[in-house]
């Protein structure tokens, strides 16, 4: 009678032992071959037969670690969801060419520095109202307004009155003009980011009402956002680009902070897509038959040196020490180990191979510890410096990566110190409390931070902050770089701007104020048994890829 009680205990113990000893042998979906889907182009191509109309069915469920800045207002750079239910004025293709958004075409009059956009007729917002030039003007003006939107949007300032905008005109219902102060081809980047909001609806419900229930003209309609829990979208079956109507009727994104839970939900079929999974787990799961796709531009990891021009910058004030730090890094080893092979040496700040302004001359520094040590000797390191210790800083989350980098520097004899700071302090250092540039008396003069983030198809405006003497990151302070940057932003010809940006990139690379480490893939993990081809605009962002995700076998 008493012994029966031991049975479940033994079973529990046995189960624990089996699980812990067989961790790698996990449930697999029916397809066991690892699958990596390459991004697919879906730009409209002329066809002779009329394609079958898309009828959305089923629910696509994704899990993510954090909603981050969970705003529904597309004015925010961080509100990537806004891409799903809004259309932008312009778009860009796989090769970084600007292509029509809600504007079918556009032209630029160099004499008057005026952009004229011809809006596609017949676009309707989700409430049935027409999208007109009034909505475009409203959206562009709001996007460039000098208001505290509390956004990290790096572009809005570039169409504000303070920068290069003198007027905003509705010519007729479907013609809109943006008058700049001077020709600037790169402003098309900002137009490609500006999403068109319904003016009347916005004014009727107010900003808070709009944020509570946003409306756009995009392929998805907003249904519900439960903060820090879930967001639900519904397919817009009336979407004006009929070939971009979503294949799924609903898209549900759940916030699941715990990675193990996200992975297990993917394994059990409780979700179809898992975002924010570590590379080692991706390797394991693709081995078990799950698939990945590159949705969005690849990421880069680079190191930035702050306030190097100040006399008290210490060793990093000497370019030879910064060069030595670059040559000391074995980038291939970092790519193979830290990034589990899903990365390669290289990458500039916010810039990956093939991006606007890219040139093949932007090669990563080789791993050359001997040269690094020679440079240190030439610089008289460590004796030439009062304080030879080189400081890097990061948050607790980034400490392991920094320790890896430090191990390379210590191997060539550099004395380093890793400062683990609170995320608030880290942000304050990187942006100098948002109120100006670094000052000589600040703690972080001469210190180094890493910038590991998704890149962008055109990083012109990001680079202003990293490389020019007005940049908020307090890393650039070189008049030649400022002049070269001005050349990029003061031309009406995008090809000239492209060439000027390449020249600028080659130049700023020689300054060693920001050194690229690796370019890594942004992988989205999914279950190929429940999710089919990704036939959307995968090169833009995950949110833009959503409406192109098909059902298996579709």
């Amino acid at each position: 009678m008493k012994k029966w009680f031991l049975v479940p205990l033994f079973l529990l113990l046995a189960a624990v032992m089996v699980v812990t000893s067989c961790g790698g042998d996990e449930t697999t979906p029916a397809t066991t071959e690892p699958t990596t889907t390459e991004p697919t182009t879906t730009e409209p191509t002329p066809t002779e037969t009329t394609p079958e109309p898309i009828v959305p069915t089923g629910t696509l469920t994704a899990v993510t670690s954090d909603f981050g800045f969970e705003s529904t207002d597309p004015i925010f750079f961080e509100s990537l969801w806004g891409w799903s239910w809004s259309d932008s004025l312009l778009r860009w293709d796989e090769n970084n060419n600007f292509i029509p958004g809600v504007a079918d075409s556009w032209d630029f009059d160099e004499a008057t520095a005026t952009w004229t956009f011809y809006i596609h007729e017949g676009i309707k917002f989700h409430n049935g109202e027409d999208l007109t030039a009034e909505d475009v003007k409203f959206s562009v003006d709001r996007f460039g307004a000098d208001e505290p939107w509390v956004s990290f949007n790096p572009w809005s300032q570039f169409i504000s009155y303070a920068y290069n905008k003198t007027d905003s005109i509705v010519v007729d219902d479907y013609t809109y003009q943006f008058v700049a102060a001077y020709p600037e081809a790169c402003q098309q980047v900002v137009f490609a980011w500006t999403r068109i909001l319904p003016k009347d609806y916005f004014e009727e419900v107010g900003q808070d009402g709009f944020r509570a229930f946003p409306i756009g003209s995009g392929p998805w309609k907003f249904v519900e956002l439960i903060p820090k829990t879930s967001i639900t979208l519904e397919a817009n079956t009336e979407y004006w680009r009929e070939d971009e109507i979503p294949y799924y009727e609903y898209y549900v994104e759940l916030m699941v902070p715990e990675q193990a839970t996200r992975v297990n939900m993917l394994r059990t079929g409780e979700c179809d897509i898992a975002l924010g999974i570590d590379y080692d787990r991706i390797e394991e799961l693709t081995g078990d038959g799950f698939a990945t796709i590159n949705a969005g531009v690849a990421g880069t990891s680079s190191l930035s040196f702050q306030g190097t021009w100040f006399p008290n910058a210490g060793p990093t004030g000497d370019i030879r020490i910064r060069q030595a730090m670059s040559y000391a890094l074995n980038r291939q080893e970092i790519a193979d180990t830290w990034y589990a092979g899903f990365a390669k040496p290289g990458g500039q700040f916010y810039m990956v191979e093939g991006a606007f302004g890219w040139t093949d001359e932007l090669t990563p520094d080789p791993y050359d510890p001997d040269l690094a040590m020679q440079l240190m000797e030439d610089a008289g390191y460590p004796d030439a410096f009062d304080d030879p210790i080189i400081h890097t800083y990061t948050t607790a989350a980034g400490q392991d990566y920094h320790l890896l980098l430090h191990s390379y520097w210590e191997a060539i004899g550099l004395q380093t110190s890793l400062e683990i700071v609170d995320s608030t302090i880290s942000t304050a250092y990187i942006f100098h409390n948002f109120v100006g540039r670094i000052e000589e008396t600040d703690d972080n003069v001469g210190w180094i931070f890493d910038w590991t983030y998704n890149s962008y198809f055109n990083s012109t405006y990001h680079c202003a902050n990293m490389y020019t003497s007005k940049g908020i990151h307090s890393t650039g302070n070189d008049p030649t770089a400022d002049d070269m940057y001005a050349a990029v932003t003061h031309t009406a010809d995008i090809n000239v701007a492209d060439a000027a940006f390449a020249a600028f990139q080659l130049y700023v690379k020689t300054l060693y104020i920001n050194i690229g480490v690796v370019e890594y893939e942004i992988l989205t993990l999914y279950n190929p048994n429940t999710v089919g081809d990704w036939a959307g605009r995968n090169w833009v962002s995950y949110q833009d890829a959503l409406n192109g995700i098909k059902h298996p076998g579709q």
Partner: protein
Amino acid sequence: MTRFIIVRILQAIVALIGIAVIVFFLVRVSGDPMALIASPNMSEEQYQKIKESLGLDKSWGEQFWIYIKDMARGDLGESLIREKPVTTMIGESMPNTLKLTVPSFVLSMILSFFLGVMAAIYRDSFWDQGVKFLAVLGQALPVFWVAIMAVLIFSVYLEWLPVAGMSTPAHYILPVGTMILFMLPGMMRLVRSSMLDVLDSEYIKMARIKGLPERSVIWKHALRNALITPLTIIGMLLPSLVLGAVISEQIFNWPGMGTMILQATFERDFPVVQSITMLTAILVLGINLLVDILYAYIDPQIRYQRA
């Protein structure tokens, strides 16, 4: 007895004020939330405007006074990040936490009392050994590991139960089970040892000699006296319950108070962190007060001594 209760209530109020002071200053020492809220494009004027609107431009002393004044009126403030009243946020997440913690607490108490008493009665039997083994296992294994392993076994391998969410009764089994395993061992061991002490006492021997039925000896006379220590511990168990909820909610993606306080801490959302901490403190002090009263009720010696 009335004097005893009044004294204990006054002590609880003093403790609450102390906690309020500590919590208020500790969250502010952790950093300035403006660094997370502000934008790089923002001018100094805009920065100051937002700081002012959030009341962060005032001195800590002024902020503390506003905080105490508002709290006394039941106004817990507004979340700095989500721009929602904290009371609304608590109102949304508290029911979810209660759905998880109440059944976990009740079931674990029933189980721990039953198993603890049985282990004491059948001392050194297989039953007792099993209870001791379960207690050691439960105390040695970290709750997050148990939760992840439970998901792996019952959801991924056996496909019996869902991994995350709270929409069906099946969703409750793993999180509640994990919470039970978190609370059960300590209480079970305590009940067992307390019961063993009582069973060895003279008055129990006397009761048996007098021929009282064994059921009456155990459940009426022994258990009542063995309850004193475990009841005291129940009050102290409440913070652990909150801690267990934080972990369980995280693993099982349960949108409760635990998840909310974790996020608020990372986001430097002062009003949310302060409010949840204070709420937990009030609960703990309230339960402790209740336990003290029960304690006096169960053991008349205490009542008479303190009176």
